[in-house]
């Protein structure tokens, strides 16, 4: 059968998953990562702000920082990550088959995915929602006015179902054009094949930030869905699950404790605050419980920074995406980001 590379990859991964002896599953991910000296992290092929390669050839983004934080905690060096770029169709198969240790690829947490794919989401690192982008010259100011329009959407995403639900509920017809990669769908949209592009709002901002004249494109006000994005791991290794979950929590806890890349050394040496002492491993050893060492959290802040730093660096007003913190502020500042205490 003549298949493209993209459609062959999930096939290969699934076959690998199905044909490997079941016993291989019990292998501890942590041990494997340590033996390898590298975290294999599945990321988006191109999602500015979340995971993309910058002009120096380095992977940068909010999701990339999650991978780096895990590497800093587990291996002591945030650079010891091998990034595996995956499109939306390959991502779960790659995780199932053990090609990657964790998937950190702006992926929406849903019941079906959590309960039937053999994977488990460890938390939420970005609260997103699905929106629409149109060319300004179309003079459309609301998604409600998109009846009979042609809409570009990426296959294998929650967006694909949301848009069907949204227009189905309104009894409105539309024509969809579906591609399997973000690059292809964005290229088709910006070439004028569709009147609207729909995906998560952060993704729309990212796509817009890449084109020559970003102000010719308008993101419509409607947000039609909840898209809680977060990392996930393979089921069956609770120890690894806990590590990835608590690395995510740590990024938020560090922000809450006002620990930054710049002040962490000073704080570690001088702070008498019991919360800070605990987080940085000066007093309690929280790492031992996770199978890590005492300074796991210190290294995350030192090498990657806290959640706020990662957000501002990759998505915030100072970046081409210029996204406000919005619901991704800490709970103490009116947002939804609330991490269970590290103690």
């Amino acid at each position, binding site marked *: 059968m003549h298949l493209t590379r993209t459609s062959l990859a999930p096939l290969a991964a699934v076959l690998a998953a199905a044909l490997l002896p079941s016993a291989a599953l019990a292998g501890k991910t942590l041990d494997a990562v340590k033996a390898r000296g590298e975290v294999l992290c599945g990321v988006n092929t191109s999602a500015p702000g979340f995971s993309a390669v910058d002009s120096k050839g380095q992977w940068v983004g909010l999701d990339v920082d999650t991978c780096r934080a895990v590497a800093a905690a587990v291996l002591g060096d945030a650079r010891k990550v091998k990034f595996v770029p995956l499109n939306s169709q390959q991502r779960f198969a790659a995780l199932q088959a053990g090609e990657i240790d964790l998937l950190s690829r702006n992926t929406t947490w849903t019941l079906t995915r959590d309960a039937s794919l053999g994977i488990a989401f460890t938390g939420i690192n970005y609260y997103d929602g699905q929106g629409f982008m149109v060319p300004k010259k179309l003079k459309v100011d609301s998604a409600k006015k998109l009846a009979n329009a042609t809409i570009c959407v990426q296959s294998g995403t929650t967006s694909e179902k949301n848009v069907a639900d949204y227009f189905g509920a309104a009894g409105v017809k539309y024509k*969809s054009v579906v591609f399997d990669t973000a690059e292809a769908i964005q290229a088709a949209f910006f070439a004028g094949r569709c009147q609207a592009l729909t995906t998560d709002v952060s993704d729309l901002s990212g796509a817009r930030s890449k084109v020559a004249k970003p102000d010719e494109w308008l993101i419509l006000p409607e947000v039609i869905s909840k898209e809680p994005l977060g990392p996930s791991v393979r089921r069956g290794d609770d120890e690894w699950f806990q590590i990835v979950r608590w690395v995510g929590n740590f990024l938020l806890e560090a922000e809450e404790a006002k620990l930054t890349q710049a002040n962490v050394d000073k704080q570690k040496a001088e702070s008498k605050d019991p919360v800070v002492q605990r987080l940085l491993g000066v007093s309690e050893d929280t790492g031992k419980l996770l199978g890590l060492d005492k300074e796991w959290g210190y290294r995350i802040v030192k090498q990657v920074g806290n959640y706020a730093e990662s957000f501002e660096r990759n998505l915030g007003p100072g970046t081409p995406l210029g996204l406000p913190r919005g619901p991704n502020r800490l709970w103490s500042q009116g947002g939804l980001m609330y991490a269970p205490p590290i103690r």
Partner: protein
Amino acid sequence: MSPPGRPRTSLSWSTRSGRALIVQGALLALLAVGALALWRNVEGALAARQIRSGFGFITEPAGFDIGEGPVPYTPRDSYLLAFAAGVANTLRVSLLGVVLATLLGTLIGVGRLSRNLLVRAGCTAYVEVLRNIPLIILLFGIYLVLTELLPDAMEPVVLGGAYLSKGGLQVPLPSWDHGWALERPEMGPFGVSGGLSLTPEFLALLLGLTLSTAASIAEIVRSGVLAVPNGQTEAAAALGLTPRQGTRLVLLPQALRIIVPPMTSQFLNLTKNSSLAVAIGYPDVVSIANTAINQNGQALECILVIMAVYLSINLVTALLMNLYGRRVALVER
């Protein structure tokens, strides 16, 4: 697994063929045991990884939209209907592709034998160029031309009653509504609608498959015609047949029996190559199955569906072509 000695020994019971039968039987049993072990392993591995399996999902609502196709499908319909819509789209582009590629390929193949230098050189150039471009590159190229260079959907080119733009090609369609009438495409708020609408994805795929396969078919036609000895044409002329009669009654029947078997392969190739649709956004069965895999995670099942679909289509194609091949075969008296 070819048995020693002459083929087709299965009906005879000489010692040699008997041995062959036993060996083949044992091999078959081994294969069956292997397949069973593989299946058990798959089941076990999927269960251990807590990945849902089985075909239970097929009646559940699919929930995603399919951009085009003859099957009236909505996101509330089942996965089964979604697959059916994909199969219909695959068949639609494959059947049209086979017909168009055969016509174009035959013309070019005959053109390569033309006495006119210009025609001959043009056809040779076509074959050499198209045969050497990978189909996927050709598809990307055609799709790029269609989506980048055509005018915006709001400002289509009008050709007679047809509209051509980034929104595709819309042509008037005869329709029955208390008498025959021509349903004409009209400008809507987001471009042209109504009539027979062909999307750029469909056009690009059809064009790519046709152009590419036609190059191979041209070579098959040319070799088939050349394989008939010159003496046959001369004999036909000697019998007093006109050149046209000679071609129709003598040359063509003999050429066809050489042409048909490799032609079958080309038809099968074209059908399989239509799976490249996924790269340019045409919702064929592979594209739909890929989407399904991502919505429900049941990759193994969906890929089995794809395999079954192509196997069925191609077995039917091969059967029809073999029947035709038998009709044109040389009857020896």
